[in-house]
């Protein structure tokens, strides 16, 4: 990824402009493709933070609720889309009637009380982005929901913009909710962790400590009983009250819990300098919490930092930069080959040893991005790596700057990746990594899933989900194994129309024929039996939606590949064998489980660092011999053009959880995903809403559960239907607007 050229470069181009525009376009020499830098963009909640969400409806479709709460008065009649959306077993988790969106999901299961599930999502019910929680104590049949308390600031104000939700339980069943919070009108931001001891129904309110000294620190005014700094992982106050990037910005945090490694004792910290102090024994957690996040600053865009907590999130260690350096980051031009252009970190811990891994994407590359992993065996105090897992082929996605001007017209950022036929943010900035849950020979096994467009082009996106495994502690990676088993063939020229080493280009130079449909936002979990569960959004069932159809005909330029379902894929690992860096070529037999026949050891070595458009591992894998058993999760395929702001955003990731045995049932896996089955378009007869959010657009968050192996059994309510015309175009029902507002 190229770096922002900067003011001097911009100035040169500016001076050259007049002559250029009066003369030949060929006079451009290396135009300042400043947007190349944005291939690792900030998260969606930040992208939209200075846009004001409005709506002018007081009723809207509500399919999927299974609750027993009082129901609103309702003047609507259900349309066919809503009736079809009620079919099947998906359960809506958000209980609100706000007609605003929920998206970007995470879920976990209480290891102490298996029927207790906790989920999180970006939640716009208040009219702006906040962090919603959804809790169930009956295995997901019914849900209680709300917005997590906002952190309090030294100024006495609340930081009420939120997003990037992560929910986890520690081994004692204490729940944690990590998120970014930010101001919408300036650069103030931070990372916080709320805590709940009743299964996610009641949450602490984090605070940023204030006071003259550490000893005299307080949370708020007189009588504030909170521990100073409770839940504050990191915080930076803006210095000029303008949204202009004048101070570093926190983004895309993730959280995990795991035992302190042998020899590592619990440590607690002061609120200002994060100096070690003795812990109050009453609040030492069974696990160490690890929070990682991106910090966008002049030093890198962005660096990955880690803090940990041994007192259930009350105090946090000083931020430690963990992204490291490597020869594969040399293209970034940083001192010492530092890997400083990162995003989408996720920590994961082996629960028997406490070894920690953190995966993240990196853009210090010549062209396509890469996925890196670092590891720590001493509780996050020191790290080794990074190790390069593989190239992440996410630069060759459709974007405004390579032909998707239709999306720019709808309000999408011009460098944001979008899928063919739609305009929602598509940048695969968050991929997923998970450590094996077992000890012994499995204790250093770790797995990752990445989604990228290696089988598509900037005209016809065909993102696939790829699985990688390491059996030597993350030093050596085996893959890629395509997880989705639909038809996906190799394009003749993956880089057709794309400028050399650039996100810019001309997609009209690519063939009209596509090579497959998109799978995206993958998440991987594994249970104690070795059942791998991958879930992802999937457009495979839409093979025939016509060109020029849908909510935005000018965007629907290719046949099919439009409506979105949620799918799962399963494979079980019961044996392992250590495969090291010295191994090359075929995968040794003992490590072959859940590996495609075409996968290799060290795929990066096979492809080379900057492989260009030629064949690469992951191209042309035979669908009939892929090891993951695929199955449909969501009941219906919905139209993400109806998700949020002209279909520009439906989250950056979707989570799942593979938990322990539920009493009276087999081992279960849980999916928690967003879809737009209750979203509707603007247009007649309700065309007059002047706000920034079209009438009736919304998305909701849905839950489903299924057995952890065998292809999602106990889950036969999905019919695998093709694109349904009632979801291609779903007009806003008549008469739902607030009558007094016209």
């Amino acid at each position, binding site marked *: 990824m190229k770096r922002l050229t900067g003011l001097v470069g911009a100035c040169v181009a*500016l001076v050259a402009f007049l002559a250029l525009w009066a003369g030949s376009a060929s006079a451009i020499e290396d135009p300042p493709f*400043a947007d190349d830098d944005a291939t690792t963009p900030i998260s969606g909640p930040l992208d939209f933070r200075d846009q004001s969400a409005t709506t002018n409806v007081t009723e809207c479709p509500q399919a999927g609720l299974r609750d027993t709460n009082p129901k609103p008065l309702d003047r609507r009649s259900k349309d066919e889309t809503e009736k079809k959306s009620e079919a099947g077993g998906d359960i809506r988790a958000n209980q609100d009637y706000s007609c605003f969106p929920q998206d970007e999901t995470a879920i976990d299961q209480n290891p102490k009380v298996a029927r207790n599930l906790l989920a999180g999502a970006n939640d716009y019910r208040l009219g702006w982005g906040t962090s919603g929680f959804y809790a169930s104590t009956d295995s997901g049949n019914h849900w209680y929901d709300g917005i997590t308390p906002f952190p309090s600031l030294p100024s006495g104000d609340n930081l009420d913009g939120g997003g990037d939700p992560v929910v986890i339980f520690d081994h004692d069943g204490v729940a944690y909710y990590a998120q970014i919070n930010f101001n919408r009108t300036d650069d103030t931001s931070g990372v916080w962790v709320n805590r709940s001891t009743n299964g996610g129904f009641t949450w602490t309110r984090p605070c940023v400590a204030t006071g003259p000294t550490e000893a005299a620190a307080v949370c708020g005014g007189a009588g504030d009983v909170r521990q100073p700094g409770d839940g504050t992982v990191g915080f930076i106050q803006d210095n000029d009250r303008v949204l202009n990037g004048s101070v570093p910005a926190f983004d895309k945090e993730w959280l995990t819990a795991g035992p302190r490694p042998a020899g590592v004792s619990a440590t607690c910290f002061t609120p200002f300098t994060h100096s070690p102090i003795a812990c109050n024994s009453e609040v030492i957690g069974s696990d160490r919490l690890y929070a990682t996040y991106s910090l966008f600053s002049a030093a890198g865009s962005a660096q990955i930092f880690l803090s940990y907590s041994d007192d259930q999130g009350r105090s946090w260690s000083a931020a430690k930069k963990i992204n490291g350096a490597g020869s594969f980051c040399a293209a970034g031009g940083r001192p010492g080959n530092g890997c400083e252009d990162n995003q989408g970190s996720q920590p994961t811990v082996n629960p028997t040893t406490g070894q920690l891994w953190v995966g993240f994407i990196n853009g210090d590359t010549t062209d396509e991005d890469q996925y890196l992993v670092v590891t720590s065996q001493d509780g996050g105090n020191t790290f080794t790596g990074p190790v390069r897992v593989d190239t992440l082929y996410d630069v060759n996605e459709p974007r405004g700057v390579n032909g998707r001007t239709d999306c720019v017209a709808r309000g999408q950022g011009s460098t944001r990746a979008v899928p063919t036929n739609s305009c929602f943010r598509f940048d695969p900035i968050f991929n997923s990594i998970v450590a094996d849950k077992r000890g012994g020979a499995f204790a250093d096994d770790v797995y990752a899933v990445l989604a990228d467009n290696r089988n598509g082009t900037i005209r016809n996106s065909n993102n696939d989900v790829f699985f990688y495994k390491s059996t030597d502690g993350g030093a050596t990676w085996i893959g890629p194994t395509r997880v989705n088993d639909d038809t996906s063939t190799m394009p003749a020229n993956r880089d057709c129309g794309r400028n050399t080493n650039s996100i810019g280009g001309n997609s*009209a130079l690519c063939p009209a024929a596509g090579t497959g449909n998109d799978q995206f936002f993958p998440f991987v979990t594994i249970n104690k039996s070795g059942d791998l569960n991958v879930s992802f959004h999937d457009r495979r069932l839409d093979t025939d939606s016509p060109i020029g159809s849908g909510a935005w005909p000018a965007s629907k330029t290719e046949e099919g590949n439009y409506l979105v379902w949620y799918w799962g894929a399963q494979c079980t690992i019961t044996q392992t064998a250590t495969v090291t860096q010295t191994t090359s070529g075929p995968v040794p037999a003992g490590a072959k489980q859940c590996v495609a026949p075409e996968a290799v050891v060290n795929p990066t070595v096979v492809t080379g660092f900057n492989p260009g458009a030629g064949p690469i591992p992951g191209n042309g894998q035979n669908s009939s011999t892929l090891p993951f058993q695929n199955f449909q999760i969501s009941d219906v395929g919905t139209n993400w053009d109806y998700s949020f702001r002209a279909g520009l955003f439906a989250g950056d990731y979707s989570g799942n959880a593979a938990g322990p045995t539920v009493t009276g049932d087999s081992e279960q896996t849980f999916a928690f995903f967003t879809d737009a089955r209750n979203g509707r378009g603007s247009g007649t007869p309700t065309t007059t809403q002047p706000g920034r959010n079209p009438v009736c657009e919304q998305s909701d968050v849905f839950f489903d559960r299924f057995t952890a192996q065998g292809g999602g059994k106990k889950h036969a309510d999905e019919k695998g239907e093709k694109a349904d015309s009632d979801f291609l175009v779903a007009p806003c029902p008549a008469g739902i607007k607030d009558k007094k507002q016209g």
Partner: protein
Amino acid sequence: MPAVLCAALVVGCGSSSGGISSADAKNLVLRASDLPAGFAPFADGPTASLDTQGTARADLQRFGRQGGWVMRLKREGGASQTGPLVVVSTVDVFSGSGGAKSDLEAYARDFARQVDTGLAKRVAVRNLGDDAVAARVAGPGAGSSFLIAWRKRNATASVTASGLAGKLTLSDVLALARRQEAKLARAA
């Protein structure tokens, strides 16, 4: 080139003398009533960071910018619909005409970049504001867009219209731009 000189070039070439007020920005973009029947707004508000993300105009404080507005409108239409399906009308107001000139130059850089990649073709636009630049973008498949940007004293404005290839003409879009220019002229 020294950054100081560049900065001087960007912000020092002009001053406001009773020009367009940023307080009027909301009224200087196209409205549904300015467009053919059937158009409705789907976005209407002050310029946000995502509206200019990834462009040479991404900094909302650029060139002494004081404010701006974005209106996005769409209409229903299938494969037979002639004229624009989506129209985006914007205005940005600067403290002086120099800022507006720099902003138009930034527009031109973005257009030139697309021309350089073969994504767009330059099109000539005359007698629109004080200066104007325009391009036609022929995307993959059935899509087609025209982008017109111009300067009026201390403000820049733009109209982007998207429709179906062969059914959207420059004159369709230019007519809309002239309608918006009339609003700017009245405010200047």
